[in-house]
């Protein structure tokens, strides 16, 4: 009897962690591109980036609401989003990289969107009906994101000498963070075996093919790299993460339990 309960506990904890693994990526990327609100290079791109951010935050709410329900204690979606410490966020390093120039912002978005699109397409088949519903809903939005970022990669890559150089720099600089997208945690593995999670290792080839296709059209060279950065999925982040969280969590830290 005891073993049964603890098995169910493990399953619950893994599902909770699994949801956070998906949602944290969108939260942190949403925060990053949300930083462009009022600072975009043009009015249209500014509005577009805040729209992407809004979509991602909307999706994040659905995931965290579900996670809070699974946790089954008094935790709320806001607690999960706002009150964890840096080490407890398990987003990939790619999404926390800071906004440099617009090419870098687009490059980061594109490298994530290609993954996100493939991931959600598979998550639709999840045996967990809530996750599959969120995936179906989100996929419609993310296909717009992917169009937008692919379009800009091509425009900048195949644009002027300067925009081309900046786009190439961005892809070269961000490439080291792409491999981590396909790493599996223990929670991921269990969820895959339960038919709930997506086996990300199987997305890798398609991912790099799809990325290369757009980069080639954008006259951007596909980087060749042997060593990649990792750690985000274990909570070991780059130095940029602390600054991001300081801003994200400012209101709750300064005025604990405040509400709108």
């Amino acid at each position, binding site marked *: 009897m005891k073993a049964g309960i603890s098995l169910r506990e493990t399953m619950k904890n893994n599902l909770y962690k699994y949801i956070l693994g998906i949602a944290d990526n969108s939260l942190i990327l949403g925060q990053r591109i949300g930083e462009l609100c009022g600072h975009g290079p043009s009015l*249209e791109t500014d509005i577009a980036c805040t729209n992407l951010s809004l*979509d991602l935050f*909307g999706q994040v709410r659905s995931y965290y609401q579900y996670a809070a329900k699974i946790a089954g204690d008094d935790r709320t979606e806001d607690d999960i989003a706002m009150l964890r410490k840096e080490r407890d966020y398990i987003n990939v390093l790619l999404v926390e990289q800071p906004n440099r120039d617009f090419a870098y912002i687009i490059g980061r978005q594109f490298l994530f969107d290609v993954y996100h699109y493939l991931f959600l397409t598979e998550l639709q088949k999840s045996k967990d009906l*809530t996750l599959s519903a969120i995936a179906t809903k989100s996929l419609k939005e993310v296909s717009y994101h992917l169009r937008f970022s692919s379009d800009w990669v091509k425009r900048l890559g195949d644009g002027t000498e300067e925009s081309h150089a900046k786009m190439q720099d961005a892809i070269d600089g961000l490439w080291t963070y792409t491999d981590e997208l396909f790493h599996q945690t223990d929670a991921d593995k269990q969820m895959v075996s339960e038919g709930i999670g997506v086996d990300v290792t199987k997305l890798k080839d398609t991912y790099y093919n799809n990325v290369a296709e757009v980069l080639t059209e954008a006259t951007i060279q596909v980087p060749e790299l042997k060593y990649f950065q990792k750690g985000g999925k274990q909570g070991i982040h780059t130095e940029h993460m602390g600054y991001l969280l300081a801003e994200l969590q400012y209101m709750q830290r300064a005025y604990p339990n405040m509400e709108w």
Partner: protein
Amino acid sequence: MTTTEQHIDKILIPILEQVSDPEIPVLSIMDMGVVRSAIIENDIVKVEITPTYSGCPAMDVIGDDIMAALKNAGYKSKIELILHPAWTTDWITERGRKALEKYGIAAPLEAEADKDVLLNGKRLVKCPQCGSKNTKLVSQFGSTACKAQFQCDECQEPFDYFKCLK
């Protein structure tokens, strides 16, 4: 899987039709297709609504407005947000599409045409001001998550286009 049919008690329809989308006030939430079910159970109206876009900030307001409208009609209510099946622009009614056009927002085209317009720069969207199809995409993202920005090359007016979502 769940069907896409709506289950709405006939008595409640006129009440729900009074509630409008806070961002597009000419459009009732019924014409928008966000109310998926509304039934009376033990004197409480249970309403299920679905968001147009995940991040749609209007959903909380819509929930509150529904409760207020039902309260005025003498009903207690409970609102639930559902994600499945996911909302599509096909659920906007014909009356809703006309209201959009009249308000100055171009209604969504079919999926293929929408793609041509947003990706290949085809001129298919009808300007809600002058009716010309000589219109161009300004940005894939507009004033709200559900819209793109367009401009008419005949009358020069900028306008919103409600993106197709399937």
